[in-house]
């Protein structure tokens, strides 16, 4: 047996402790790195709209009744949009019921066949947009056309009004309604009675949902053309440098046109997206800090034990040097020893990492960790081990041969 391995047998306890620490660190760090990668990938998915050029605010009507007879809401909406388009830096303006990643969503069931409840597809996110909504948001069609001016109708899903007859769907929704077929020109129904048919005129390649969750998924939605949205979002396409000013002025402009309503603060859409991912960013920071502390701690532990061993073996090192071992041989000895122990820890830790991932998958709906991530954890710990042992090993290599002749 190789002398290094037979020498290790004399230090069973300490070796088991170091290997155990490496294994635990490996299992935790591998899963943490995987989680970080997973969150980063989720955050990098594009929204499908022009993130850096949008400003929005939400306005809600205030039904005070009595004295002031309310103006026709369609007129108010038109006046609002005209005034907003007049703000400096604003390129276009439109109304929508909601925007991607604003956490405020409406969802509905759609039906592939008229009057057939079993042909339904539940939890489809519904976007409503006034004329120019696609252009204002910067939504790109991958096939078909935008809505025509005459296709916009007065529609509120919470009132008894017939919905529009044309629709734009996302590629994901089209794929689930008609797998493998072109959706353009096809018809589906918005109700289980088969009364409200809509025809697909366009397909959006990608448009994120207002909220990404288990039921609604990531980007399964449809867009309906409406003349106005009650209690909806005013969204403006703005030159990026004018966003701050527009955000400030937006609520005032709306309140001046009709004071009988409550307007939220203006929002820069890029900030809205950043807010949506706040929890993910916080999680990434926590994982990074804990991973960093864990690695530092493990490294210090390895340094402590290696130093102890070097001190313990000073005499043996002196004897080896006296009978012809070079400094390089001593250095290599400690490095190889460390490699062996760390590898044992990594082997154990990889099993732990897979186990931990399976357990997390069961309890927290995490994704399955591809085995390639194990390699990332292993590389990190090998490097860490070698780095930690370098100092003590150099000290060992510096032990002069004359030590062999002294009693300690």
């Amino acid at each position: 047996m190789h002398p290094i391995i037979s020498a290790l047998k004399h230090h069973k306890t300490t070796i088991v402790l170091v290997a155990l620490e490496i294994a635990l660190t490996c299992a935790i760090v591998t899963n943490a790195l995987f989680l970080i990668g997973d969150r980063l990938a989720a955050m990098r998915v594009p929204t499908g709209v022009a993130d850096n050029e949008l400003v929005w605010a939400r306005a809600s009507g205030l039904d005070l009744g009595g004295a002031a007879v309310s103006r026709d809401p369609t007129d108010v909406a038109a006046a609002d949009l005209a005034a907003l388009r007049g703000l400096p830096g604003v390129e276009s303006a439109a109304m929508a019921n909601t925007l991607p990643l604003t956490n405020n969503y409406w969802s509905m069931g759609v039906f592939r066949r008229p009057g057939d409840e079993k042909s339904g597809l539940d939890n489809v996110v519904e976007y409503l947009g006034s004329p120019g909504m696609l252009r204002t948001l910067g939504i790109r069609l991958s096939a078909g056309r935008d809505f025509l001016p005459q296709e916009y109708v007065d529609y509120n899903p919470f009132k008894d009004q017939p919905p529009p007859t044309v629709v734009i769907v996302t590629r994901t929704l089209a794929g689930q309604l008609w797998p493998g077929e072109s959706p353009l020109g096809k018809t589906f129904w918005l109700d289980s009675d088969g009364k409200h048919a809509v025809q697909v005129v366009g397909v959006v390649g990608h448009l994120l949902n207002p909220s990404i969750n288990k039921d609604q998924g990531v980007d399964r939605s449809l867009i309906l053309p409406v003349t106005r949205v009650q209690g909806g979002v005013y969204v403006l396409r703005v030159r990026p440098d004018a966003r701050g000013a527009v955000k400030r002025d937006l609520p005032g402009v709306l309140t001046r046109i009709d004071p009988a309503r409550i307007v939220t603060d203006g929002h820069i859409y890029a900030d809205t997206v950043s807010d949506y991912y706040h929890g993910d960013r916080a999680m990434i920071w926590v994982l990074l800090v804990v991973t960093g502390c864990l690695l530092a701690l493990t490294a210090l532990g390895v340094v402590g034990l290696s130093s102890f061993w070097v001190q313990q073996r000073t005499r043996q090192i002196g004897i080896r040097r006296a009978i012809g071992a070079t400094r390089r041989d001593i250095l290599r000895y400690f490095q190889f020893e460390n490699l062996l122990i760390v590898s044992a820890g990594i082997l154990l830790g990889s099993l732990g990492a897979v186990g931990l991932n399976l357990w997390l998958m069961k309890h927290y709906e995490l994704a399955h960790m591809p085995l390639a991530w194990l390699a990332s954890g292993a590389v990190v710990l090998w490097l860490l081990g070698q780095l930690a042992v370098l100092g003590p090993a150099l000290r060992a290599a510096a032990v002069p041969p004359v030590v062999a002749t002294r009693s300690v």
Partner: protein
Amino acid sequence: MFGYYLDLALHSLKRNKVLTALMVLAIALGIGASMTMITVLHVMTADPIPGRSGQLFYPQIDPRPMDSDNPTHDPPDQLTWIDAMNLLHARKGVHQAAMTGGRVTVVPPQGASHAFFTPARSTTADFFPMFDVPFLDGSGWAASDDERRSRVAVISRDLADKLYGTPHAVGQTLQLGKYDFRIVGVIDRWNPSPHFYDLGMGNYTNEPEQVFLPLQTALDLKLSGANSMSCWGKFPSDGDLRKASSCAWMDFWVQLDTPQQVVAYHEFLVNYSEQQKALGHFVRPPNTRLRDVMAWLDYNHVVPGSVQLQALLALGFMLVCLVNTVALLLVKFLRRGGELSVRRAMGASKRSVFAQLLVEAALVGLAGGALGLLLAIFGLWIVRQQPVPYATLAHMDGVMLSATFLLAVCATLVAALFPAWRACRIVPARLLKTQ
């Protein structure tokens, strides 16, 4: 004897400052990280209504059609209007209240241009005695107000201060939209956390309801919506949710004081479902649940997964810190083989050497605990800076404070057991001879 051990321990710790600092730091990091996350978990899983949570129950029944494509076997999380009213009028519990949430437009005395939205709750009279809501002025409304559809309101202290400049606002008029209400009660600050009675407002909320209205009154005047709702059929065309027989949107709580009452209420729910099925209103066989507050919170997974995950991560970190401490203590104790052998040779028993080493470890634990406490306080401060609704809850209380020290010392002592035992096994004669 203890004083002597303490003296020896301090001496030994001072001799190797780097190693001591390393151990203290390892324990402090482990304790700091885990206590931060455990404290967050502790406040988030706290009982929102201590003393009452075991007597408050949330009934669920299943009015859905057979072919509903919802794959879960659990009944809907809320009740339909009809079922909620039937359970309310059956009066089978000590107290019971039906409720829904939403927001109202408050028009302050200064005029409509200062109008603002505020969260509101529409409920029935028993809400206040059942949840033990603290009143500052006046009281809740009577059951007869519910039936008469009186225009009365209970408001929060904050809203009373804001509108009238005084918390004693009973008798004042509150304008909501275009309707006037008479204020009958002002409640003191009250925001159970988690917001157990209506999780549709978010599991934790910093903006509790400021206005409480009789349920029927609010619905008649269209002042109330629903924070959450699930439908399996048609939505009524005029938007009046009371006619939506296939939409569940009402929250319902019942107070049951004894186990017999709980059993009886469960039977009542089954009987009710069977009776409704016989009448043709229900299709499914009775599918009922009756959970108390804590079980209801658990069923709804109120604590976010990310918080649990971080607590788990912190505990894993703590484990690594402990293994690290075991290894470092082992090194430290074994290095001192010579000194320990001299003490043994001079008559110290194995037990006294063991005790001495443990005293030394306990000192390290105490120092680590103190530093860890500072780290945990800093960690909690960071948590409070986060824009999450539970951020304001993240404070350390006395229990967690003492738990921190206890955990630090116990963990270090456990970690020291093995190294100390190993160090005691040294045969003094052999070590002394080689020196």
